[in-house]
């Protein structure tokens, strides 16, 4: 008896009018929300317009450039090594070496510092505030800038690149590590303290086993992204495949450029696949 009355398909005009009267707010358009959305969009667009004017965007330049870009992509085909495949492979190995050693150094340096920056290890707010801001400063300097600085110290070459990646990632990993340490479940650490463990025991047996898989997976993730950074670090002279890449682009040897880009794409895909599997094993091991 009640069923058909409640069925929305059977609502007559009278019932709808009644509903309108009972819930006026649900039927009124939300003018305030819409106005805000429109204003926000207008602000975004206006700023974008200002940016385009300020940054000398011009349709003619854009079109001419696109035309030339089309020509370039035709000139890139087919990719070929120009008899330097072996040199390129060596440069690629150098790139991977830079990424690996840089990430490893950064992780080793960041590991102890992260505990200093974690609130649940060092309760003194002054210490962890200072450490955190220090990490922030290191982190906000780009890899390429670090590379330029290190070139002044150890000279041109891949070593400067490895040091640059180590420095830039030290900041980023330190921050991520300390966040991981802070979000860890504190019960294990409390248990160690309760059974008479000292502060270092608490860290070693209560915190480290819980965070190690997370840290490991973050390090692997950074290694993946560093393979990409290491390919460009040669642009300022810090070793790796970037040196050839920028040189060949400048002299418009576009087929070799295409070859190099293909090599980078394949390498990055392989590294991603391998480290993705490793990461899943690490995290899976932690969950089990």
């Amino acid at each position, binding site marked *: 008896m009640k069923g058909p009355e409640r069925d929305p398909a059977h609502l007559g005009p009278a019932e709808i009018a009644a509903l309108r009267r009972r819930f006026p707010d649900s039927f009124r358009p939300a003018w305030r929300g819409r106005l805000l959305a429109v204003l926000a969009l207008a602000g975004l667009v206006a700023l974008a317009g200002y940016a385009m004017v*300020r940054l000398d965007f011009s349709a003619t330049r854009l079109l001419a450039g696109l035309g*030339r870009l089309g020509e370039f992509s035709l000139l890139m085909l087919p990719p070929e090594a120009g008899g330097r495949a072996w040199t390129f492979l060596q440069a690629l190995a150098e790139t991977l070496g830079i990424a*690996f050693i840089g990430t490893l150094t950064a992780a080793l340096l960041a590991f102890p510092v992260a505990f200093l920056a974690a609130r649940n290890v060092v309760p003194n707010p002054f210490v962890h505030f200072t450490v955190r801001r220090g990490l922030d400063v290191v982190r906000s300097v780009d890899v390429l800038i670090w590379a330029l600085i290190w070139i002044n*110290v150890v000279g041109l070459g891949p070593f400067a690149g490895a040091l640059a990646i180590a420095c830039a990632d030290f900041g980023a990993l330190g921050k991520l590590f300390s966040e991981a340490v802070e979000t860890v479940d504190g019960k294990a650490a409390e248990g160690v303290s309760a059974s008479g463990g000292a502060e270092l025991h608490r860290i070693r047996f209560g915190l480290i086993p819980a965070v190690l898989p997370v840290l490991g997976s973050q390090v692997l993730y950074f290694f993946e992204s560093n393979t990409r*950074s290491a390919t460009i670090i040669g642009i300022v002279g810090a070793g790796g495949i970037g040196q050839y890449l920028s040189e060949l682009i400048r002299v418009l040897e576009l087929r070799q450029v295409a070859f190099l880009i293909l090599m980078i794409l394949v390498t990055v895909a392989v590294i991603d696949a391998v480290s993705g599997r490793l990461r899943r094993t690490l995290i899976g091991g932690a969950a089990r």
Partner: protein
Amino acid sequence: MPERITPLPPDRAAALAGAYGAAVAATRRRTWAGLAALVVLAGLAAQAAEVRPLVLAANLGRFTDYIAQILPHLTLANLPGDLAEWYWGWPKWLGLLGETLLMAYLGTLLGALGGFVLCFSAAANVAGSRTACFLVRRGLEFCRTVPEIVFALIFVIAFGLGPMVGVLALAIHTTGALGKLFSEVVENIDMKPVESLTAAGAGRIETLRFAVLPQVLSNFVSYGLLRFEINVRGAGVMGFVGAGGIGQELLVAIRNFYYADVSAILVLIILTVMAIDLGTERLRHGLLGGLR
């Protein structure tokens, strides 16, 4: 009523202890094997990257010297004068810094638009066809694997020097990165609204607008802000290849050993990046908290 723990029969206890010992030994062996592999790989990598610890040790003094040299000479007696001398080029530098921020903004906005348009085709649950999904995914992969500086190098030749090139390079890279993240967000939505809208006869655009968009928009904005942070850093070095922003001034200062200028510009960049980080973090927390 004291409870008594009955000890296990000795043979069973011994078997259990043996199994435990074996398990621990296996874990240890695996750890050592992993460490050994790591050390071997590190050795190979060090060989490839020409790591020379002796050079580093010998020249570490130069690093500290360098840091000491780029620090400005500030004295308490004449602080305003020294500061003015340190930041002698501030009108130009601030202008370039503004240009850098605008580059990052425009690059992020254009890239986010590109990612937004493409992400629905790349998400397996709402994609129109599987071929399109595959193609779009590979395309996005290409855009985000090739570093933005490489795009900038090529574009500088095609479009000429200037900040427009930097914006385009950032935009393409951002399209790749955000397209992937956006499509992952779309793949994780609750499909019930989509099904009900489809059942009620809505077309593709209507389904996306009223069933998908409300679920994903806050995450999209949050990822966009995160990307803006990254792009501010990226835009800071675009000038190294002639693609606009403050990077060019920094490169000139470092290459020509204008020590005080290096620190002045670096401090500007560091402060800007930190301010942007803090600001976007606030915004993101407000956004995700407010919409939940």
